[in-house]
């Protein structure tokens, strides 16, 4: 962390988006996380994604639970709605908020402790219900706030900073999300923003439950040799399936992208995702194959990253429940108290 607020000055030639905002307008308070924390990189990727998508900050709601990861919403999108919930209960709060006002963009920010331990049940049900959200787990495989115990996503055989070896099997949240019916599933790495940024943008544009498991090394307690969530280990074992170019009418940015065949996917809002395949025979629309590929990668000691599964025309919870289209705060007295005639009709219908 630093004690100084970030200086107000910005680059004299700083870019503005369609709303006239610079990426600095998407910042929050100065981070109090450890210097070099992967979570700060994820925050930066979220800010840039919202900037590039021209999202008005006040139309975004960011919700989180407890933990290092769940502190991060304070450090980005300072002009957005925020809710810091009880440990592991972010998915319920988010579901409720989404039901009350479907017009906001929902970012659920959680960690491996918040989602894979105390909140595992909450995680499962929010995904299962298809709540329209981007659910990001900032996964460092360690309890950083309590000084480095193994978390539920620590790999078996991974070594703690003090030398203990983890004997428990890990929970793979990506595998669970696939099994529970998430309609957008991705894994990325905080040290690779060229991959992470487009995934966040695609997740925001996706309607339905979008889940991103983002490996985010804990520089204080889980970045040593023997850890399977360190910068070095993840870089050495990263098996990227694809690269995303996210196109919103603008010309795509084609930087640092290795060659590969292209696959274009149109999202429900008309924007286009262009996938540059790195694993040639991989089809992101095949859930069963995705699960198989994930297990194969795991067995081979690879960390499979990229867009793993996408259902293009997914519905969301509102559609499933056929709820009122307007946000509840937009309903007036006439809508809420339709009168005795309406009540009579209802009673008749139930007779």
């Amino acid at each position: 962390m630093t004690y100084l607020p970030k200086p107000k000055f910005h680059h004299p030639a700083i870019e503005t988006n369609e709303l006239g905002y610079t990426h600095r307008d998407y910042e929050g308070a100065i981070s109090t996380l450890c210097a070099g924390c992967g979570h700060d990189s994820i925050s930066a990727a979220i800010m840039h994604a919202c900037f590039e998508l021209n999202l008005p900050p006040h139309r975004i709601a960011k919700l989180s639970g407890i933990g290092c990861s769940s502190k991060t919403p304070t450090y980005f999108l300072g002009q957005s709605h925020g809710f810091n919930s009880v440990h592991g209960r972010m998915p319920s709060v988010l579901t409720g908020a989404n039901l009350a006002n479907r017009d906001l963009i929902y970012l659920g920010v959680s960690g491996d402790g918040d989602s894979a331990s105390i909140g595992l049940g909450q995680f499962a049900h929010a995904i299962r219900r298809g709540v329209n959200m981007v659910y990001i787990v900032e996964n460092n495989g360690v309890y950083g706030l309590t000084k480095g115990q193994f978390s539920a996503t620590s790999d078996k055989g991974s070594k703690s900073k003090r030398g203990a070896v983890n004997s428990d099997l890990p929970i793979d949240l990506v595998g669970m999300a696939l099994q529970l019916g998430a309609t957008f599933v991705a894994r990325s790495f905080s040290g690779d923003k060229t991959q992470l940024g487009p995934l966040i943008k695609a997740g925001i544009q996706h309607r339905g439950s979008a889940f991103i498991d983002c490996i985010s090394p804990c520089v204080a307690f889980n970045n040593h040799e023997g850890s399977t969530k360190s910068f070095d280990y993840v870089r050495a074992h990263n098996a990227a399936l694809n690269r995303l170019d996210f196109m919103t009418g603008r010309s795509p940015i084609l930087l640092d992208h290795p060659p590969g065949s292209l696959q274009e996917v149109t999202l429900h809002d008309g924007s286009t995702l262009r996938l540059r395949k790195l694993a040639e025979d991989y089809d992101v629309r095949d859930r069963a194959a995705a699960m198989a590929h994930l297990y194969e990668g795991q067995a081979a000691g690879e960390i499979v990253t990229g867009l793993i599964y996408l259902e293009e025309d997914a519905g969301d919870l509102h559609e499933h429940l056929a709820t009122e289209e307007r946000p509840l705060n937009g309903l007036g007295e006439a809508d809420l108290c339709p009168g005795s005639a309406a009540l009579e009709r209802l009673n008749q219908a139930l007779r």
Partner: protein
Amino acid sequence: MKPTDISAPDYFHKVVDCQWACPAHTPVPEYIRQIAAGDYGRAYMINWESNVFPGILGRTCDRPCEPACRRGRVERDPVAICRLKRVAADYKPDIAALLPRPADIRIGKRVACIGAGPASLTVARDLAPLGYEIVIFDQDAAAGGMMRTQIPRFRLPESVIDEEVGYVLGLGIEFRGGRRIDSLRALLTQGFDAIFVGTGAPRGRDLDIPGRREAAANIHIGIDWLSSVSFGHIDKIGRRVIVLGGGNTAMDCCRSSRRLGGEEVSVVVRSGFAEMKASPWEKEDAMHEGIPILNYLVPKEFTHSKGRLQGVVFEKVRAERGAKGRRELVPTGEPPVHMPCDDVLVAVGQENAFPWIERDIGIEFDRHGMPVVDKDTYQSTLPRVFFGGDAAFGPKNIIWAVAHGHEAAVSIDALCNGGDVTRRLPPRMNLVSQKMGIHEWSYDNAISIDQRFKVPLKDSRIALKDIKAEVELGFDGGLAFAEAQRCLNCDIQTVFQAPLCIECDACVDICPMDCITFTHNGDEDDLRTRLAAPAPNKAQDLYVSSELKTSRVMVKDEDVCLHCGLCAERCPTGAWDMQKFTLEMSYAGQGCRSSA
């Protein structure tokens, strides 16, 4: 690009824009920090070592540092470097004990300096403590040269000149004032081991147009008039005054006129207002005193009647691009303008004059009548004779004269010790980490967002009544602190050690100016297009690291870096560190002599 060699003194020196731009390479951020800390004595001495005349320059410098200041690129106006220098001079305690003492042992070498202006005094200051016997000659009774004769007292009080010239003369230097050197040949026979010519550009250019001779009584050459005012020979001027010329001398002339009875004073320039040579702040000061500046008017004739000046006739012109793309002034064809006046001051330029140097003693002159002087050693074609200041390459400013003086002193020292005059030692540099604790630095890295503070002025009704009343009151301690806090500490360098970097991106994310990018290497033009923010300013270098683990490199555009140190605060491994860059210029002395 190849990894940047930060051990080359020039690399980080260039990052300190002000110091790089200063001819004397004054360590500006270092003394500004001392001012902020209230240590005015230390701030003064840092200046004194580099530029010899902090109090004088703090009022009169042409400030090449300020247009270079990074603050001007990230905010709007540069730090008021010049006026902060004055603060150090105004509020310092007695610094006599910090000055070098006259040499105890004389080395038996004698050096004559002709002219007691800034160049000669710098040579004398650099050499006297080394044991040289220095004799300074000047036509005037008091030393100081143009600083004393041409700069009006309302800009530079006499006490400041006396003090700072006194520090130099106090080093055991012999000053022979009121003695004009009429023959260099004669001086050459007097046993001096070296002679330094620092006689300035003492002749004001005249304007030879009809009526000049007839109305001569009321037409004055600007610099001569200023020096007569300075010595009290002239204490009034006509009610209506026209000043011809657009340089700083013209500004001094018009403002002096306002104080000597000139009620309607105007400045008239041939070319456009923007093309004037005067510094913008001097134009501002003149206009603040109710002096209009009229442009695109070429003087054609002085009108007179019975030997008395009546006015000046001007032709109206406009600027056009000529056939060769050069800017030319062409008449507009409108009828000429007659402007009545009582006195005219001609300040259209200065020339060098060396009637006292015989042309057959071995000193070559070029076709413009200027001595042939080596640009690095300041040596003339007669090895024992050196030139500096305006006498060497024509009119410039005090700070250039000081820089020339330092270099000439190095040459003279080498000559007198049988060394190679052309030998120059590179400056010595050092980098020292400023880390004090986990997030503590030995400098104030919070960035002030204040805009440039204005220097308080004396009420012009009072100021215009007394030619000796200094107009600028100077910053007080509080304003000086606030202005000093605007300095971005560009000498506290961002130093990157590639082997320590784990490529976590923390520095990229925190940098408020988007200076840092991790990307694949390429040549400079290519890299500049692939950075986090546009990097079009090629005058500012890219700092490129050696290759990192992912085969990328770190590229930092130095252009708009705030030196806030957040990259280093966010770096988990200490790959970034904030290190103070100090540059030690090589002055005359043991270190600069070759053994040969």
